[in-house]
């Protein structure tokens, strides 16, 4: 299918830029998270101008659009041209997209610090930024679409299907949530439509697509060597398409949410249905890793961790979507733990994995320090579990105290757990710095080569 005579200079140029810079936004994410963790334990630790509300918005926006979107877009700029066997449509548009991402994120941070905030979670930036985001998305989408149209689309490629669907999910849900001018319960539903579909649609589909391309390359099990029947990937795709959109309603189950019984039940049971694609995909990746013909290295460690956290995340998510469990966990620190499991344990670990792997394809496996990579992995795991476990326990404590007269002492009861979260949050932050240092090493290697990919034995290994 793939032709080694085709080279990908545009794709390499744009993708390597995205992959080399996304890591530095992670430091902003860690720093804002750390500030909030301190504020929750010692509210008067920082001077007044450090507002929790602005910091929270920056934390969320930096992880959505800074770190994860940049990394995923970088990987897509690398992978999609290779799947359709044609170079990226336009280097200019790609670089424009890259520059606008930075400008956009800076504007978001500045406006949030100035106090411009819509007050809607995940959708904090105000209207003029939303319009800019839509334009940036259009630049990205047009570039990818033209590449696909001019390219040679394979007969069936789960990787391509998932990636294209993820881009469309981002666009559709962003437009729907930001430009709908909903009110009351529909506004609430619009917020959760974006919050849920940004994570489950944009991030997860994109990561699934990237893994469908990367795992066979990483393990040397391409095409007919694949150790699983191909109908599983079709089943996976159709199942997520059916189960994800209605499962948004599982965010509006608790108490007297003004949602009728039909949609509550639809939200509950489509969430439980999500267990089908979850286990299908877990099987696909796990069996590939098990039968791997190549050494997996640092990236492989992250892939295995990603899949374990993915399974944890989806089992947790499906079970807490059932109403009698939801009554207990809703609106507690449990949810904070779950959010970190999804965005850090699952998606970010996946992004660490593919960033290491793609960069090793560009600049060779010695471009980053393996020791640093391994310490990054273990420190991130310790830091993450140290945040996730106390938050989950605190959530259970909160849930059990909520209906009782002890309600007033919840804050004191969960204080030690919040403190533990802060301490391990610092450990996590160290792992981010290690990651950024490692990427800095890759940058210095790449610089000697004018950021052109280094080919082994004169063969285009990036193909």
């Amino acid at each position, binding site marked *: 299918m793939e032709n080694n005579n085709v080279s990908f200079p545009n794709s390499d140029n744009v993708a390597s830029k995205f992959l080399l810079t996304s890591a530095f936004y992670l430091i902003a994410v860690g720093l804002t998270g750390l500030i909030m963790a301190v504020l929750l334990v010692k509210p008067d630790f920082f001077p007044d101008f450090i507002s929790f509300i602005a910091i929270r918005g920056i934390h969320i926006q930096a992880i959505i659009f800074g770190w994860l979107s940049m990394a995923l877009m970088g990987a897509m700029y690398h992978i999609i041209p290779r799947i359709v066997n044609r170079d990226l449509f336009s280097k200019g548009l790609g670089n424009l997209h890259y520059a606008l991402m930075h400008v956009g994120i800076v504007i978001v941070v500045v406006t949030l610090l100035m106090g411009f*905030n819509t007050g809607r979670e995940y959708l904090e930036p105000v209207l003029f930024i939303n319009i800019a985001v839509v334009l940036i998305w259009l630049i990205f989408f047009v570039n990818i679409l033209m590449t696909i149209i001019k390219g040679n689309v394979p007969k069936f490629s789960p990787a391509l*299907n998932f990636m294209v669907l993820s881009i469309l*999910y981002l666009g559709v849900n962003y437009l*729907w949530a930001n430009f709908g001018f909903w009110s009351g319960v529909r506004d609430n539903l619009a917020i959760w*439509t974006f919050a849920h579909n940004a994570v489950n649609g944009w991030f997860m589909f994109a990561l699934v697509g990237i893994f469908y391309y990367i795992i066979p390359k990483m393990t040397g099990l391409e095409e007919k060597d694949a150790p699983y029947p191909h109908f599983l990937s079709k089943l996976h795709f159709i199942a997520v398409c059916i189960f994800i959109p209605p499962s948004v309603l599982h965010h509006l189950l608790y108490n007297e949410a003004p949602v009728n*019984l039909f949609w509550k039940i639809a939200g509950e049971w489509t969430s439980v249905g999500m267990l089908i694609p979850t286990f299908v995909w877990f099987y696909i990746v796990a069996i590939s890793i098990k039968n791997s013909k190549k050494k997996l290295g640092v990236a492989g460690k992250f892939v295995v961790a990603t899949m374990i956290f993915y399974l944890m995340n989806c089992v947790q998510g499906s079970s807490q979507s059932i109403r009698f469990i939801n009554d207990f966990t809703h609106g*507690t620190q449990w949810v904070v733990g779950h959010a970190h499991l999804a965005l850090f344990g699952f998606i970010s670990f996946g992004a660490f994995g593919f960033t290491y792997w793609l960069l090793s394809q560009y600049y060779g496996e010695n471009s980053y320090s393996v020791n640093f990579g391994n310490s990054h992995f273990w420190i991130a795991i310790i830091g993450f579990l140290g945040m996730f476990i106390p938050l989950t326990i605190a959530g259970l404590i909160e849930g059990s105290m909520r209906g009782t007269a002890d309600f007033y002492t919840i804050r004191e009861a969960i204080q030690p757990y919040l403190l533990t979260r802060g301490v391990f949050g610092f450990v996590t932050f160290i792992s981010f710095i290690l990651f950024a240092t490692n990427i800095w090493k890759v940058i210095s290697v790449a610089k000697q080569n004018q950021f052109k990919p280094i080919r082994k034995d004169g063969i285009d290994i990036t193909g």
Partner: protein
Amino acid sequence: MKNLIGYVGFGVVFLLLTLVASFITVDWGLEKGYGEPYWGDSKLATEGQKIVTSAGCLHCHSYRGQLGQVTGPSLDAVGLRLNNPKVIETFIRNGSGIMPAYKDKLTDEEITLISEWLSTFKSPYEER
């Protein structure tokens, strides 16, 4: 190409269908005044909702586990805990602990209005 359009098209069409259907029918069949006072459509409730959202209250507080966050205490029974609008007003004006003071950020009328609205929040915890 055919496969790509078929699969992705199915995904997007199903997403759009679900969005349209759920946004149209989400509250069909619920009796009038369901979820008062938060979801109410009185002038106090509509104005109050608008201010509470734009002032950033929901970045920490929540109402009945719907909109909002878990950092601060929920607003479910704030009218029972602080059983006078004036007390709520003092909290909003001067802040407490991690909660910022809003006396320079909101006008006096806005603070009075949301205090009045919040003092009607008296959902008992037992009704879960």
